[in-house]
């Protein structure tokens, strides 16, 4: 899966476009989704998301996605689950402090964010994870935040 994950970071630019497109489609579908009920949709959405994002990004399904702001690299793959940037332990070759054979997630994220011109969004201070959202659909959550019907 490492190969796919790295491919995703290298192709962050158009993947981000696809992602933005998906958000747009979801917001178009919102009246229907709302009628069906977000809670009822959460499980199937989370299942699809888990497969797609799991395959492309090794997503850990935290339920509060930052991919668009972290260069399409899932920060939850960081062994310290750091969501705001690399720790000081990154090795000189860019390897992770804890898993030396793995490139630091944030080395990838920085590379990816430059590709999508997201040097600004990587500066957004990410709140700590809400552990209650783990395994739930981040897409639906993002949609509900966008249309203003969620906390």
């Amino acid at each position, binding site marked *: 899966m490492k190969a796919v994950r790295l491919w995703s970071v290298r192709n962050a630019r158009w993947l981000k476009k696809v992602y933005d497109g998906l958000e747009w489609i979801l917001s178009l579908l919102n009246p229907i989704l709302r009628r069906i009920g977000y809670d009822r949709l959460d499980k199937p959405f989370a299942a699809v998301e888990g497969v797609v994002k799991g395959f492309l990004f090794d997503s850990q399904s935290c339920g509060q996605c930052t991919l668009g702001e972290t260069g399409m690299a899932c920060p939850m793959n960081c062994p310290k689950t*750091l969501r*705001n940037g690399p720790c*000081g*332990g990154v090795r000189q070759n860019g390897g992770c402090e804890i898993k030396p054979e793995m490139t630091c997630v944030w080395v990838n994220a920085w590379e990816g964010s430059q590709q999508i011109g997201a040097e600004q969004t990587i500066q957004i*201070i990410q709140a*700590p994870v809400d552990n209650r959202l783990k395994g739930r659909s981040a897409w639906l959550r993002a949609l509900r935040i966008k249309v203003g019907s969620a906390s």
Partner: protein
Amino acid sequence: MKFDDEPTPGEGLPILPGHTSPGRFERILRAGKFAVTAEIAPPDSADPADVFARAALFDGYVDAINATDSSGANCHMSSMGICSLLTRKGYAMILQQSCRDRNRIAMQGDILGAAAMGVCNILCLSGDGVQSGDHPEAKPVFDMDSISALSMVRRMRDEQQFMSGRPISSPPRLFLGAAANPFAPPLDFRPHRMAKKIAAGAQFIQTQYCFDIERFRTFMAQVRDLGLLEKAYVLAGVGPLASAKAADWIRKNVAGVHIPDAVIDRLAGAQDQKQEGVDLCIDLIEQVREIEGVSGVHIMAYRMEDRIGEIVTRSNALDGREPWRPAL
């Protein structure tokens, strides 16, 4: 040096306008003095006398003492315990709080407790991975990261609220610090990461060991260009190396420490390598002082704490200023 409004040991100084803490460390920096901090070695014991003896090595040489939070994920007396003991005597303490071992509930409780014990400064760290320490089988917590922790403490102080939004009746009056490692990849991201820490609330920055002065100079220039020097005080991390062999071991085994070959060569070529390590540290202090935006030095003299007096005196880091020390 004593302030005119010096309190009895254990109590805070009056908070001056524009200050956020009742501590002397913030006062020294805001007064534009070149500050010296040092890291105390936490004992593997429950004896307060061990802590007092280790702190006494710094008397008259440092403005504030960092109490590490089981650094390298090796178990020692807690930062909170050391700070509690030493604030009673009047020392200016910097509580180090890593996200490795505690969740947000424990961290916020500790912040209130520390402030109540007279701690005026907190250094928010992500923390070393548990794999590097003596309990690699432990559960790494990392509920927060250094940046979300900074914004959490700032909110407790400035908005008088827990993360939950529940009010705090008397907020912790703290001066907030963060760490920076200018030497670890991705190098271009490092100044931005520091910017992010400052945006999250950091008022002072203590860096990783600076052995690569050229790299540090570049970093500081980038930091200046981002306009960060007006927003936070930077203390450059320095420290003596015991020998070329020790230095080589550190750079291979201690996460985040970058030691160039030239440093190892200089130590290896010396007759008395330990003395050369001290001399090198003094040279480094003189060099970092010349760099625009360096407001002080943070001395990490691991297992060489007894040499801090010599380092501070010979480098003249204090410009003849005599920091507070406990009354004899």
